[in-house]
């Protein structure tokens, strides 16, 4: 796997800094010499499919897993060998992990009582957290008497009362239904803008990643593929994996060749030729096998002239999704999807004309998958 040298790795006084972190379970390497710097007050989302090591990385930062190699700094202090409680972190878990035999108030105060903090100070902090999260009426209830959303709020509160520098979220919304997830997502975003703490958030949900993150780290196989602002990752994915993982419906990929004639670069497959005059190459292109990727919403429908590339295609399936419609086409012999507004829905088996600007496309090397 290619290592991506990210220009933003060298942040001044990072809140969390991970240097050459590796973790092996026996012969299996889960994390490989991983480097990431998180700025003060930044919201970083670790995004990836299950088994990519994102939760493992979070557990390493929390100190719940011993690392095989590398160092972890939090607030400039080397915490690699520190206990979780001494790292200045608060953690929110997917299953809420509330202590079932304690009331909400006792759940919130547990860590403070263990640390031996004075009673009036505990009361003050609980009052503040309860107010921020609007869980004051729930303080005397047991977790079993709370709904999923309320439980997750209490779980966030437990991290809040500890007055920590860094919040760690381990897929906090995955156990909630779609509606609540959307609500709490907004609340977490509001919480972040209110508290301005550093937050590291693990998820496999790209919507959560796109909406919450200042920067997203897309992970695969224990390696960070790309670490950048959400829009950059969405528009200029560094490799085919990142391009395919983000975006729903997924990006269209066309297999073909990169060719040059008359001094102009073309992407050619079957009898289709896409001119690449507007495409910004990452490096000097060479002719050869390549993959052309374009997002379904970057393709226009029933378009006339004025597009660098136009073609006709046969409609295979039409999927109305309410706000817009997904149209599955055959472009040559390859599958191709287009997202259009509902008013412009074609019929099945129509032949339609499409057009797009290769400026918005992504070209990948067929062998390595890297962006060209």
């Amino acid at each position: 796997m290619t290592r991506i040298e990210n220009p933003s790795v060298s942040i001044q006084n990072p809140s969390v800094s991970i240097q050459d972190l590796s973790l092996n379970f026996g012969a299996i390497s889960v994390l490989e010499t991983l480097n990431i710097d998180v700025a003060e007050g930044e919201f970083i989302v670790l995004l990836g499919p299950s088994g990519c090591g994102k939760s493992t990385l979070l557990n390493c930062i929390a100190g719940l897993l011993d690392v095989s190699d590398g160092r972890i700094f939090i607030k400039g202090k080397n915490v690699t060998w520190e206990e979780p409680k001494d790292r200045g972190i608060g953690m929110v878990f997917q299953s809420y992990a509330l202590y079932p035999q304690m009331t909400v108030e006792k759940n919130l105060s547990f860590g403070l009582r263990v640390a031996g903090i004075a009673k009036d100070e505990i009361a003050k902090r609980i009052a503040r957290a309860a107010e921020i999260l609007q869980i004051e009426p729930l303080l005397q209830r047991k977790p079993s008497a709370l709904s999923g959303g309320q439980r997750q709020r209490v779980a966030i509160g437990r991290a809040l009362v500890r007055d920590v520098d860094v919040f760690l979220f381990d897929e906090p919304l995955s156990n909630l239904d779609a509606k609540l997830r959307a609500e709490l997502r907004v609340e977490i975003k509001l919480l972040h803008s209110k508290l301005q703490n550093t937050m590291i958030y693990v998820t496999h949900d790209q919507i959560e990643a796109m909406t919450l993150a200042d920067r997203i780290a897309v992970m695969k196989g224990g390696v960070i593929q790309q670490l950048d602002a959400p829009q950059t990752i969405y528009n200029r994915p560094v490799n085919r994996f990142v391009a395919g993982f983000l975006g729903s419906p997924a990006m269209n990929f066309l297999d073909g060749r990169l060719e040059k004639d008359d001094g102009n670069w073309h992407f050619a497959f079957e009898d289709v030729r896409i001119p690449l005059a507007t495409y910004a190459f990452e490096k000097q292109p060479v002719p050869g096998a390549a993959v052309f990727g374009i997002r379904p919403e970057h393709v226009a429908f029933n378009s006339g002239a004025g597009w660098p590339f136009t073609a006709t295609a046969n409609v295979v399936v039409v999927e109305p999704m309410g706000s817009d419609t997904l149209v599955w086409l055959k472009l040559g012999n390859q599958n191709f999807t287009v997202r259009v507004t509902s008013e412009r829905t074609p019929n099945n088996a129509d032949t339609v004309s499409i057009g797009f600007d290769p400026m918005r496309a992504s070209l990948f090397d067929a062998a390595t998958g890297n962006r060209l």
Partner: protein
Amino acid sequence: MSDHAVSLPAGTGSIGLEASGPRGPKPRHVFSRRNIFLYGTLIVVALYYLLPLYVMVVTSLKGMPEIRLGNIFSPPLEITFEPWVKAWSSACTGLNCDGLSRGFWNSVRITVPSVILSIAIASVNGYALANWRFKGADTFFVILIVGAFIPYQVMIYPIVIILREIGLYGSLSGLVIVHSIFGMPILTLLFRNYFSSMPEELFRAARVDGAGFWGIYFRIMLPMSLPIFVVAIIIQVTGIWNDFLFGVVYTRPDTYPMTVQLNNIVNSVQGVKEYNVNMAATILTGLVPLVVYFISGKLFVRGIAAGAVKG
């Protein structure tokens, strides 16, 4: 809502379907084949198990002349509690003639500390094995489980020697230690599996909150494990109370547990066989585990099914 189907008057079936016929719950007959088989089997099995108990109770309430008539199933003509009193306070075993009461108190003095000690150690063992995966934990666990498969009889003699060497042979505390050790494999397995079934994130949350080994054990794990403790208590109380082998080997006549004393009463060879006293003594001895079962029955079932209990 202007849906046509909703505005249909109640009772108007769809056109073309019969209007009468089965509707609502299907009727069930009391004397259906299913019920006869089910309850028949239950009654037969219950009788099979309860008959000996009935004979014991009936016999224990009869005088000896009535027993000699030989009608073991007939209820007592004259109810007498004398055999019970005799069994408890004046039946002779060897040199002592103070009945089972001495053995009862010995058994209490053996059972209570053994149960507490073995469960205390095994629960911490199980907790450590389930949550703190220390180096060599698996090996340790395998050794412990193998211990459960070695027949007790093999170890009797070596343990006699060990107890003699440390000066505990014949004392109650020696027997308490033996019981605690032999309860360890199965109890540790029980607790380990229970603690493993608890959500791991709970344990992690407690660590982030700063609780240590004992803090998590006492403040998080213990309050959540009542069912499994009840199971362990039942297993240990019945096991230790009913034990005969260790009792007879590792104690002296004046510290014999109730089971050994019962055996000595029932098997005494001098004089007449007092069947009524024997029956009363046997019921008395079996009473403690029975009471434990009755009191904790519901919790016992919950604990046995604890694999499915989520926090």
